[in-house]
C-alpha cells in the first residue's frame, strides 16, 4: 500500500434492504477508492446501486457491513449532519420557503458560523456560480438551470471535503446539460474539491470524469479511466453498456500469450485480445468505428462478405448495418465511407476490415 491518503476508501461495503440474509441486496461488497481532488463518476443503469452508494456516502442510509473512510477516518457511524461531505440533489431540493441567499448560507448557519462570515461566503459562492443578482429571489422564481447553480453553491459553501452529485444534470435540457458539463468540470478544478458524480449517461461519464466506476446489479464491474473503460472493458456488461458494439459468437482456434486466434460464422480467423480465461468458445467484441470497408495500414481482413441492410446517417457519422452470411448483424462506422460521394446501395455485398488491435474476446454468450 502506498502512503497516500485517498479522499474516500470503501472496503467491502454492503447494503441490504429488509432481511439481512434474504432481503434485497442493493450493494454487494463494493471496494474501491476515490483519489484526492479527483472527478470520480459512479456509472450504471437504474437499479444498479449507484444511488444507494451515494446515499451511503452522504450518510442518509447506513451500511449493512463494510467500512467507509474519508481521508483515512472511518465515517460509517456518523450521521449525515456530522459528515463533512455535501450533496447536490437530483431535483435540487432547494428549500422553497427560503431565499437563494438563505439556501446557500444554510449549511454554514447550521454549523454555527458567525453571521458575517456566512454572508461573505454566500456572496463568494453566488459569484462563483454567477447568481449574485438572484440572492433575494425564491427557488420557485428560478429556471431549472439557475436552481442547479444554486444547489451547487449551497453544497459548496461549507467547503465539503467531498462533493456528492446525484444525477444533477438529468433534469436539464440537452443544450444546457452540455454547457453544464464543462462548467462542472471547471468548477471542480477551480475549487480543488473531490467530486463524486452519479449518472446513468455514459457519454456524460466519459466526458467529465478522471475515473469511472461502472456498476450493475449492486456489483462494481470495473474502475478505471474513461479510455481504459472504453477500450479495455473488463467484461461483456461494460462492453455493452459503454458505447456501441458488435458482438459475435466465436470459437477459439489457438492461444498465444495475451492473444487468441478466433473464428466465427462468416468471419475470417482473426487475432483478438484474450479476456476469455481459457474458454474454448466466447463472444468477440469489435466496435463499429474499428471496422472499415477498405484495406489500410494496421487493418486486417475481418469478413469476406457482408450484405448492406441499411445506412444510418447522423451527419457526423454514417453507420452501415450489414448482415454476415449466417444472419448476424455487423455495424460499421467507417469515416471514409461517410466522406464518399455516393452511399453504398442496399443489398450490395461489401468486404469488411478491422483495426488489428480492436477485436477482444470475452467468456460467455453475451447479448
Amino acid at each position: 500500500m502506498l502512503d497516500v491518503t485517498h479522499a474516500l476508501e470503501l472496503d467491502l461495503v454492503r447494503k441490504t434492504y429488509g432481511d439481512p440474509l434474504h432481503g434485497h441486496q442493493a450493494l454487494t461488497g463494493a471496494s474501491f477508492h476515490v483519489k484526492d481532488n479527483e472527478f470520480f463518476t459512479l456509472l450504471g443503469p437504474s437499479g444498479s446501486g449507484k444511488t444507494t452508494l451515494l446515499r451511503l456516502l452522504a450518510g442518509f442510509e447506513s451500511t449493512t457491513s463494510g467500512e467507509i473512510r474519508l481521508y483515512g477516518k472511518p465515517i460509517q457511524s456518523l450521521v449525515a449532519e456530522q459528515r463533512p461531505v455535501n450533496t447536490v440533489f437530483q431535483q435540487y431540493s432547494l428549500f422553497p420557503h427560503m431565499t437563494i441567499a438563505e439556501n446557500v448560507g444554510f449549511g454554514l448557519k447550521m454549523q454555527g458560523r458567525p453571521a458575517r462570515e456566512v454572508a461573505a461566503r454566500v456572496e463568494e459562492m453566488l459569484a462563483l456560480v454567477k447568481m449574485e443578482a438572484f440572492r433575494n429571489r425564491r427557488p420557485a422564481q428560478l429556471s431549472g438551470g439557475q436552481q442547479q447553480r444554486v444547489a451547487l453553491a449551497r453544497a459548496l459553501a461549507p467547503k465539503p471535503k467531498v462533493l456528492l452529485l446525484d444525477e444533477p444534470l438529468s433534469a436539464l435540457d440537452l443544450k444546457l446539460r452540455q454547457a453544464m458539463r464543462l462548467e462542472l468540470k471547471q468548477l471542480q478544478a477551480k475549487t480543488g474539491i473531490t467530486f463524486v458524480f452519479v449518472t446513468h449517461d455514459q457519454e456524460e461519464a466519459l466526458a467529465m470524469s478522471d475515473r469511472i466506476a461502472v456498476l450493475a446489479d449492486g456489483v462494481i464491474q470495473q474502475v478505471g479511466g474513461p479510455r481504459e473503460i472504453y477500450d479495455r472493458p473488463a467484461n461483456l456488461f461494460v462492453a455493452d453498456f459503454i458505447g456501441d458494439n458488435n458482438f459475435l459468437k466465436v470459437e477459439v482456434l489457438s492461444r498465444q500469450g495475451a492473444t487468441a486466434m478466433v473464428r466465427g460464422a462468416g468471419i475470417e480467423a482473426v487475432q483478438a485480445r484474450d479476456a476469455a480465461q481459457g474458454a474454448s468458445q466466447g463472444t468477440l467484441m469489435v466496435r463499429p468505428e474499428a471496422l472499415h470497408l477498405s484495406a489500410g495500414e494496421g487493418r486486417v481482413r475481418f469478413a469476406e462478405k457482408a450484405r448492406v441492410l441499411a445506412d444510418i446517417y447522423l451527419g457526423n457519422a454514417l453507420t452501415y448495418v450489414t448482415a454476415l452470411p449466417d444472419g448476424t448483424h455487423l455495424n460499421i462506422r467507417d469515416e471514409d465511407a461517410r466522406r464518399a460521394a455516393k452511399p453504398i446501395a442496399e443489398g450490395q455485398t461489401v468486404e469488411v476490415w478491422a483495426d488489428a488491435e480492436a477485436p477482444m474476446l470475452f467468456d460467455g454468450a453475451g447479448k
Partner: protein
Amino acid sequence: MARNSHSRIIGQFPGFGKFTFLFFVYLYLPIIVVMVLSFNASPAATVWGGFSLEWYGKALANADLRTAAWNSIQIAVSAALLSTVLATFAANTLHRLTGRKDATLAQGVIMLPLVLPEIVMAVALLSFFSSLGVSLGKGNLIIAHTLLCLPFAFLPIRARLQGMDASLTEAAADLYARPFSRFRHVTLPMLMPGIVSGFMLAFVVSMDNFTVSLLVSQAGSTTLPVFIFGMLRVGVTPDVNAASTLIILASTALVVVSFLLAGRNPK
C-alpha cells in the same frame, strides 16, 4: 345543413350539470332562508315585512347569548390550540414512521373521534367527568373539544407532510442541521399553511359542536349552539335567525381562509 361535428364531451354525462345545480339549491336554500328571515321586520316566516336589523339588535342585547358566545370562543381557541400542537407533533412523527405497526395503531387511535358516533363519545365523556367528581368548568369542555378537534387538526398537517419532498430534510441533514434544527428550519415553516389550516378547522369544529357540548356543558359553561338549542325549545323566534346568520358567516369566512391556505402549493 351538414352536420360536421358531434356534441359529446368525453367524461360528461347528460343532465349531471343541471342535477348539480339543483343539488346546490338544496344545499343553500335553507341557509339563505335563515339569512333572509333574519332581516325580515315581520316575525312571520311567510310575510315580508320589510328590511330590518331589529332581530340583530335583540340577539346582541341578550346577555346570556353574549356569555354563551364568549364561552364558545374561549373554548374553541383553547381546544384548537391544544389539538393543533398535539397533531403537529403526532403528524410529524407518524409521517417519519409510516408503515410501522405501532405508528399505524397510533394513527388509528388519533382518528377514532372521527369514526365513533358522537352521542357515544358525549355520554362517555359525561360519565368520565361525573365519575371523577371534580368539575373544571370550561376545562371539561376544552378537553372534550380537543378530542373531537384532533383528527381535523391532524389531517391537513399530515396531508401537507405527504406532499413534502423527503429530500428536503435530507438536504438539511446534509448541510449539518441536527434533528431539531431540521424540524425548526425546514419542516415547520413548510408545514405552516397546513398547521394554520388545521387550527382553523379545529376552531370551526369546536365552535359548531353541539352533541358533546350539550351533555358535557354545565350551568356556567354553556356554549353558543347549546344556548341556541335552548332558545329553539322555547319557540322559534326571529332573533335565533339573526344569531344563526352571524355564526354561519363567521364559520364560512374561516373555512374559506383555511381552504385557500391549504390549497397553496407546497413548492
